[in-house]
């Protein structure tokens, strides 16, 4: 049904005239997010992916690590194996559900680490300025000498395979990026009058940072970090695709793509499935971060 023909859409301004008070910023943001169809679809898809990953032990019809040699590479739609089986005869649906746990963990954690440590370093550099700023920011610049993929693979390649090493290498990729955004936002906010007013009224460095700076810096950093999630997921799965992430027989989307790659001449489409999962997850995060950026009216 096309709702646009029924009534003009309600805007936050309309709400304000009725309620008589301005809507708070976060309520406006939440309200705008709910109005955007792409955001709703992406959000619903992500909830579905997250829940199926969390509930994999309950939902999965088979054991992820036990296969049947006689049932190798069954096609999509095979009886009792809805999405077919892999090169060792393990149920694909089961492994996709379990694989989401690893991929989401390996993709989300580095951005979270980057968000926390990047914000701390960036606010510190931006607020204190001077030598501290030069040391922190020039150090971060050095990491910018490497394209993200190269840096992640180089560190992972030196450290060797494993989930921990993936998390370490991807965190090193994302921290400097967040530092840059946090630093420039801090420098901008610092020069605003209300910070000067807080300082003039005797506020110490720490309360100013906590109440005034952080509150105004978190918006841009949050929006920026949300744009990095899809890259992080693609890279995390990419590292295990190269054999640098989790080790077999663990189910992980990138690793599944790798081990199934040799089977495309036998059964062309089952090997493509883990990639579909990576793609859908990454696209949902991109749509969500687009929506968040528009709703918060922040450009980074």
């Amino acid at each position: 049904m096309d709702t646009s023909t029924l009534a003009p859409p309600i805007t936050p301004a309309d709400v304000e005239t009725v309620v008589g008070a301005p809507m708070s910023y976060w309520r406006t943001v939440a309200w705008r997010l709910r109005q955007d169809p792409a955001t709703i679809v992406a959000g619903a898809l992500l909830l579905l992916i997250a829940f199926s990953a969390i509930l994999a032990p309950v939902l999965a019809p088979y054991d992820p690590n036990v296969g049947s040699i006689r049932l190798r590479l069954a096609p999509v739609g095979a009886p009792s194996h809805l999405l077919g089986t892999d090169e060792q005869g393990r149920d694909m649906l089961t492994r996709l559900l379990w694989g989401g746990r690893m991929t989401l963990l390996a993709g989300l954690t580095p951005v979270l680490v980057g968000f926390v440590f990047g914000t701390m370093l960036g606010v510190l550099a931006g607020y204190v300025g001077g030598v501290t700023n030069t040391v922190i920011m020039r150090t971060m610049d050095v990491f910018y000498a490497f394209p993200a993929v190269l840096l992640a693979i180089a560190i992972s390649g030196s450290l060797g395979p494993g989930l921990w090493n993936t998390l370490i290498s991807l965190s090193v990729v994302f921290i400097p990026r967040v530092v840059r955004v946090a630093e420039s936002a801090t420098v901008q906010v610092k020069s605003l009058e209300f910070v000067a007013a807080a300082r003039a009224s005797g506020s110490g460095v720490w309360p100013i940072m906590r109440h005034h700076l952080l509150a105004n810096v978190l918006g841009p950093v949050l929006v920026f970090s949300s744009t990095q999630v899809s890259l992080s997921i693609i890279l995390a799965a990419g590292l295990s695709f190269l054999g640098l992430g989790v080790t077999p027989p663990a189910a992980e989307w990138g690793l599944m793509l790798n081990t199934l790659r040799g089977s495309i001449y036998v059964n062309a489409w089952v090997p493509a499935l883990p990639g579909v999962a990576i793609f859908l997850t990454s696209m949902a995060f991109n749509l969500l971060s687009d929506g968040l950026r528009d709703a918060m009216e922040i450009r980074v």
Partner: protein
Amino acid sequence: MWAYVGRRLLLAIPTLLGASIIVFAMVHLAPGDPLSAVMPVDASQADIEAARRTYGFDQPLPVQYLRWLGRVVQGDLGKSIATRRPVLQDVQDAFKNSLVLALSASLLAFGIGIAIGLFAAFRQGRVLDKLMSAVAIVGVSVPHYWAGIILIIVFSVQLNWLPAMGASAEGGAVEYLRHMALPTVALALIPLGVLARVVRSAALDILAQEFVLALRAKGLGRGMIFAHVVRNAAPQILTVLGLQFGFQLGGSVLVETVFSWPGTGYLMNLAIFQRDLPVLQGVILVLATFFVLLNLAVDLAQTLVDPRIARH
């Protein structure tokens, strides 16, 4: 402006030194003995000590770094532990193949990406804009290594039109191009999406400015307004072009691995699994140096296009 150029050139030196420290540290943080991969299992303790001295692994790390840097500056990247060939030669050969791939993917991605971005901006909110924006978001979301596998499934396995693996110089130019086609498309997807999105938003920003309204009021035709928009968006687009080209050269490890394309990414992957540290160091260092110089070139080109930047 020359002062700016000079300052920018000087700034590149500490960045390069820092990058060299990271490359060196990265490889030496690695667990395990780099020699264990090449020494025979029954090698005596004395043999291992001798090899360690030959490669300089018995010195303290800062000394090793300075010695290494000294050699690197003279163009000596050491010898591969696995093949005993000079690293520089292997990296050069691989770099050429990667450069060819990155150039062809860039041509494809930049051409289509810019066109999509501009079309979408000039049709803002209409069906064409929505369609183009959807293409762009697919481009930035798709795992390119998976896209590569899909291309192989469709064009090599099912249709049998194009080869799936490698790059053969023997078959002549046509055969080389045929091998290049699929990796080029796979590598072009991400920059295509990024370009389309950046160009669209840059063009929209400019279209919203008052001078465009003035141009329209003056009665300027569509073509002229288009030219103004492109001219004003150029510096921003140029930055993204430079970065994306660098990403394709340095970030093609995954695509090169899927297609066994004998470039730097493939070499790096090989070095990682053979634990061939000199090669790994060499590849990363060459790519990082290229990336820093590329960024420098982009910054300088930007000041040529828009001299206001130098004054900031």
